[in-house]
C-alpha cells in the first residue's frame, strides 16, 4: 500500500514538474511585455523602464528565469503579480482558493451523486420512459450553452421568483458586521467538509469492510456521521459563524445547481453504460439466482461495480468544471481561480497567469491522486503489489 502511494506521488511530482515547465514557457511566449503594462504612463523615461525590467529579472535569458522560477516555486514563492503590483501571486491565489474549492467540490459531488443515482435507475429500467426522458433531458443540459443557461436560471430564480440571491458569493449588507473575513468561514467550511467526509468514509470503512452491512450498522454509521455533522454545526453555531455559513450556502445554490445541471448528464450516461455492462455480468445473474431482492442486486451488485469506471470520470469532470469555472465565476460573480486566470491572461500578467495555471494543475493532480486512491479503495482487485495467493 505504502509503496503504491509513494509510486503515485512520485509520478505526480514528475508530471507536475513537466506541467510547470510547459505552462511557464507557453506564457513566456505571450506577446507584449511587462514594461508596457506596468508603466502605462508615457512620461516614464526609457531608462527607468529598463531599470524596472532589471529589477524584475526580465533582462535574464529565459532559461535562467525559468530556473529561478522553479527554485522560487519550491520555496513557495510564485513571484509578484504585475497587474496587482507588488502583491505576491501566492497571496492572490490563496485568497481565491477556498471559494473555488467550496463551490466546485460541492458542485462536482452533487452532480456526481445525481448522475450516479439517475444513471443507476435508468440503466436498471432500460428502455422505459424514464430512461428515454432522462437521456434526452440530460443531453439537452449537457449540450446547453452554459452562459445562456446560467443567465436564464438567474433571471428565473433570482430575479423573477426572488427565491435566491441574485449574485455574488456573500450578502454585503450582512457581512459588513462579520467578525471574520469570508475566507475564514470558507476555510472552516472546507475543513468541515474534509472532516465529515473523512469521518463518514472511515466509519463506513471500519464497520463494513468486506462484510455485509446490516441495517443496524448502516444506521450506526449514519448516526455517527450525523453526530459529526451536528458537532460541526454546533461548533460553528457557538462561534456565531452559522449565520454566515448559511449565507454562503444560500449564494452557492444557484451556481451549484447550474453546474450540476450541466454536468450530471455526463456521469449519468456513463453510469448507465457502465451499468448496462455490469448487468450482463454473471455475478449479477448469480445474485438474482440467489434470490436476493431486486434493490440489493441493483445496488450491491450492478451499481457497485459500475461505480468503478465512473469514479475516473469524476476527475475528468473536475477538470472540465475548472475549465468551465470561468463561466460560472463570471456569471455568478464568484471571484475564484478561473477569473484570476482569465483576467491575468488578458492583462498579460504572466506571473499571475502562470501561478493560477500551476495552482489549477496542482489541484487537479491532487484530484487525480484522490481518485486513484478512491478507486483502489473501492476496487479490492487493485493490489498494491504482491501476487495472488497460489492455489491450495
Amino acid at each position, binding site marked *: 500500500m505504502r509503496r503504491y502511494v509513494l509510486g503515485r506521488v512520485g509520478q505526480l511530482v514528475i508530471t507536475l514538474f513537466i506541467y510547470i515547465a510547459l505552462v511557464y514557457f507557453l506564457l513566456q511566449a505571450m*506577446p*507584449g511585455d511587462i514594461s*508596457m503594462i*506596468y*508603466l*502605462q*504612463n*508615457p*512620461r*516614464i*523615461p*526609457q531608462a*527607468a523602464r529598463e531599470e*524596472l525590467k532589471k529589477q524584475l529579472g526580465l533582462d535574464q535569458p529565459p532559461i535562467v528565469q525559468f530556473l529561478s522560477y522553479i527554485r522560487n516555486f519550491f520555496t513557495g514563492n510564485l513571484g*509578484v503579480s*504585475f*497587474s*496587482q*503590483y*507588488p*502583491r505576491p501571486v501566492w497571496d492572490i491565489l490563496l*485568497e481565491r482558493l477556498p471559494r473555488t474549492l467550496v463551490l466546485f467540490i460541492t458542485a462536482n459531488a452533487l452532480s456526481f451523486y445525481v448522475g450516479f443515482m439517475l444513471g443507476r435507475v435508468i440503466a436498471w429500467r432500460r428502455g422505459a420512459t424514464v430512461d428515454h426522458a432522462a437521456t434526452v433531458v440530460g443531453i439537452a443540459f449537457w449540450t446547453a450553452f452554459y452562459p445562456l443557461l446560467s*443567465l436564464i436560471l*438567474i*433571471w428565473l430564480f433570482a*430575479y423573477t421568483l426572488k427565491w435566491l440571491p*441574485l*449574485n*455574488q*458569493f456573500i*450578502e*454585503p*449588507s*450582512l*457581512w*459588513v458586521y462579520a467578525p471574520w*473575513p*469570508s*475566507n475564514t468561514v470558507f476555510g472552516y467550511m472546507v475543513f468541515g467538509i474534509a472532516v465529515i467526509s473523512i469521518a463518514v468514509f472511515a466509519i463506513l470503512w471500519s464497520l463494513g469492510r468486506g462484510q455485509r452491512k446490516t441495517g*443496524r450498522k*448502516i*444506521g450506526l454509521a*449514519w*448516526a455517527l456521521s*450525523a453526530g459529526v*455533522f*451536528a458537532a460541526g*454545526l454546533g461548533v460553528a453555531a457557538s462561534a456565531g459563524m*452559522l*449565520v454566515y455559513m*448559511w449565507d454562503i450556502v*444560500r449564494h452557492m445554490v444557484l451556481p451549484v445547481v447550474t453546474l450540476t445541471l450541466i454536468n450530471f448528464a455526463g456521469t449519468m450516461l456513463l453510469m448507465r453504460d457502465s451499468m448496462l455492462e455490469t448487468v450482463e455480468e454473471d455475478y449479477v445473474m448469480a445474485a438474482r439466482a440467489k434470490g436476493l431482492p431486486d434493490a440489493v442486486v441493483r445496488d450491491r451488485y450492478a451499481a457497485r461495480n459500475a461505480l468503478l469506471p465512473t469514479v475516473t470520470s469524476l476527475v475528468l469532470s473536475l477538470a472540465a468544471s475548472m475549465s468551465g469555472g470561468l463561466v460560472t*465565476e463570471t*456569471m*455568478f*460573480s*464568484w*471571484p475564484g481561480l478561473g*477569473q484570476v486566470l482569465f483576467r491575468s491572461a488578458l492583462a*498579460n500578467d504572466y506571473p499571475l497567469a502562470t501561478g493560477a495555471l500551476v495552482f489549477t494543475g496542482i489541484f487537479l493532480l491532487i484530484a487525480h491522486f484522490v481518485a486513484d486512491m478512491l478507486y483502489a479503495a473501492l476496487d479490492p482487485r487493485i493490489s498494491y503489489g504482491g501476487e495472488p495467493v497460489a492455489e491450495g
Partner: protein
Amino acid sequence: MKVVRYSMTVLLFVAVVFCMGIIGQAAAGGVYEMAIFEDPTTVNVWAALGPDATVWNSFVGYQQSYIGLYGNAAPDYVFCPQAASGMPSRLVEEKMDNKTYYTSVVNIRKELRWSDGKPMTADDVVFSYMAPLALDPNKLGGNWPGNIDPEILAKVEKAGDYSVKFYLTELPGLAQWQYGMLQALILPKAYWDPVVSKALKAADPIKELLAHDPKGEPVAGPWMMERWEKGAFVTHTRNPYYAMTGDTNTFYKNGAFVTENKKTGFRYILGNPIGDIKLAVTEGPYANRLMFRILQNQNAAVLSLISGEVDFILNSLGLQRGFQDQLKKAASVEVVENNVNGFRYMAFNLTKYPFNIKEFRQAVSVLIDREYICERVLQGVAFPQYSVVPPGNAYWFNPNVPMWGKGFTRSQKITEAVRLLKSAGFSWEVEPQVDLAKDRVLRRGRGLIMPNGKKMPSFEFNVMTAGYDPLRYTFGLNIATWMQEVGIPVEVVPTEFNVVISKTDERDFDCFMLGWSLGLYPDHMYWFFHSSQCPAGGFNYEMYSNPDFDKMVEEFLREADMETARRMAFRLQEILADELPYIVIFDTPLIEAYRSDRLAFPYTKTLSGIQYSGGMTSTVKLKN
C-alpha cells in the same frame, strides 16, 4: 436507520429556518450602494496612483478619501481650491544657491482635519510632495510623474503652519502646474513618514512601500475605508472630521463661480458672481456609508439595479445600449446620457508612401461618412467627431476645424475624394464614376496609381476583432468598403487588441483604428503628435512630424495663462484637422442609470458622467 436520516433532515431544516430569520434582520439605512465590476487591487494610495492605477482602485480608493490642494469643480470642471484657501500666488523668479527658481506660495485652509481629529498642516503638504520626490516619481510610475514632475519641481517648503512654498526649476505650463502639481493628493505625514523612511532603507523601497497595508491610515476626504471583503464588497464610513461638509459650490450663468462655507467662513470667488445662478451644490456627505458591491458582469449589475440591490452602477465605460430600453421601462430607474472625453480614430503610418501625402488622408477623411455611421448604423448611440478635442470638453473644443466631406452625399464624397487625390498626382487605371444626380456609383475605381507612377500596393487595415468590439469591427469594414469604391486597395485585417497595441508600439503597421480617452487639459496634442514622441516608447504611433506644429505645441504646453492657452489649442486643432495625422471619426456617449427612488443627484449633466466624480458620493442625497 431511516429515522436517523429523517432526523438529520429535520435538523438541517430547523437550522435553515433559524438562519433565515437572522438574515432577515440584516438591513441598514443610509447606505449608498454602488456596483463595480472588478475587485480593487489595492487600497494603498501609493500603489493606486502608481502601477495599479486602475479605474476601480480610484473609485473605491483615493477618489473618496483624499483631497488635493486644488481640484476641478464638477459639473463644469472649474479649477478651484480644495485644501488651499485661495489661488496660488503668481510664480516669481527667485535666486537661491546660484540657481534660478520660480516660486509660488499656497495657503491652506486652517479648519482641515484628518479623520483622527488632528489638523492638516503645511507639514502634511510638504511631505506629500517631498516624499514622492525622494522616492523618484518616475519609478513610482502611474500618475506620480504627472502630478509631481521631478523635472520641474525642485522642492516644497513650509512657509508657515498653514502655507507652503513651491520651488520650480522652470516656468510650468498649465498641464504641469494647475492640472498637474497643484492637484496632487495630500497624504498624512504622521502616518506615512515612518513607513516611507523605513521603505527607503529597504533594498527595493518602492516595492516595500507599495506592499504596505494602510490599516488605520487617517484621511482628509469625506470617506474612510471601513472593510474590504475581497471579491465581494468595499465599504466606507463617513469621516467625522471632514471639514468641507457644508461647502457650497455656486455656478453662475455668466461663468462665475463661488465656493463658500457659512460655518467656517471660507470663501473663494472666481469671476463676477452676479446674475442668475445656474447651479448650487452643497457638499455632504449625506449618506452614512458607501457600499461598493463587486459584481463581475453587466447583466448582474443591471439586474441588481432593477431589483433595488444597488443604487448606481459605477463604470467608466457606462452601460451598453441594450440596457437602455429596459432600464427606462423599469420603475424608479433614471437613465442619463453624457458626452465623454475621448474619440475613436484611424491613423496611417506616415513614414510610408503614399500615406504621408496629406491629400490622401484628406480624401480618406472625406470618404468616411461619420454621420451615416452614427445616425443610421448606430442610430444616435454615437456622435460624429472631427477634432482631436471632443466637443464635450467645451472650454478647449474648437467647433470650427475643417470637417472633411461633412454633409456630402455618397457620390459627392467620391467626387471630392477623387479631386483631392488627383490634385496630389494620383491617377487610376479605371477611374471611379458616379451619378451625382441619382447619387449612385456607376463604376468603382480600380488600380490606383500613386504620384510616383507606381501602382499602389494593397495595404493592411488593422481593426478590432469582431469578438473584441463588433461595433468597431463593422465600421472598419464599412470604411474599407468606401475606400475600395474609389480604388484604394485596402484590406481589412481583424486583429486582437493586444496585437494592435504591440504593432503600434513597434511602429509596424500600415493603418489601424483605435480609441483614446483623455484628460481635461488637452495636452494629449503634445503626446500624440509631437515629433519627440516618434521613437518607440513614445505615443506618436503614426510618426507625425511637423516642425511648425512641434514649436506651437511646445509653447502651448509652457503657457500658463488659460485664455492664451485656449487660443493656441484652437489653432493646434485646426492644423491637426487639416493635416490629419489622426482621422478622428466618432465617439459614443456614456450611459448611466441610477435608482431615482433612492438617490437625488444635484446634477446629472456633466462630461463623462456621474462616474467621473466617483459616483458623487459626497453630494448625493439619499431619499429614504
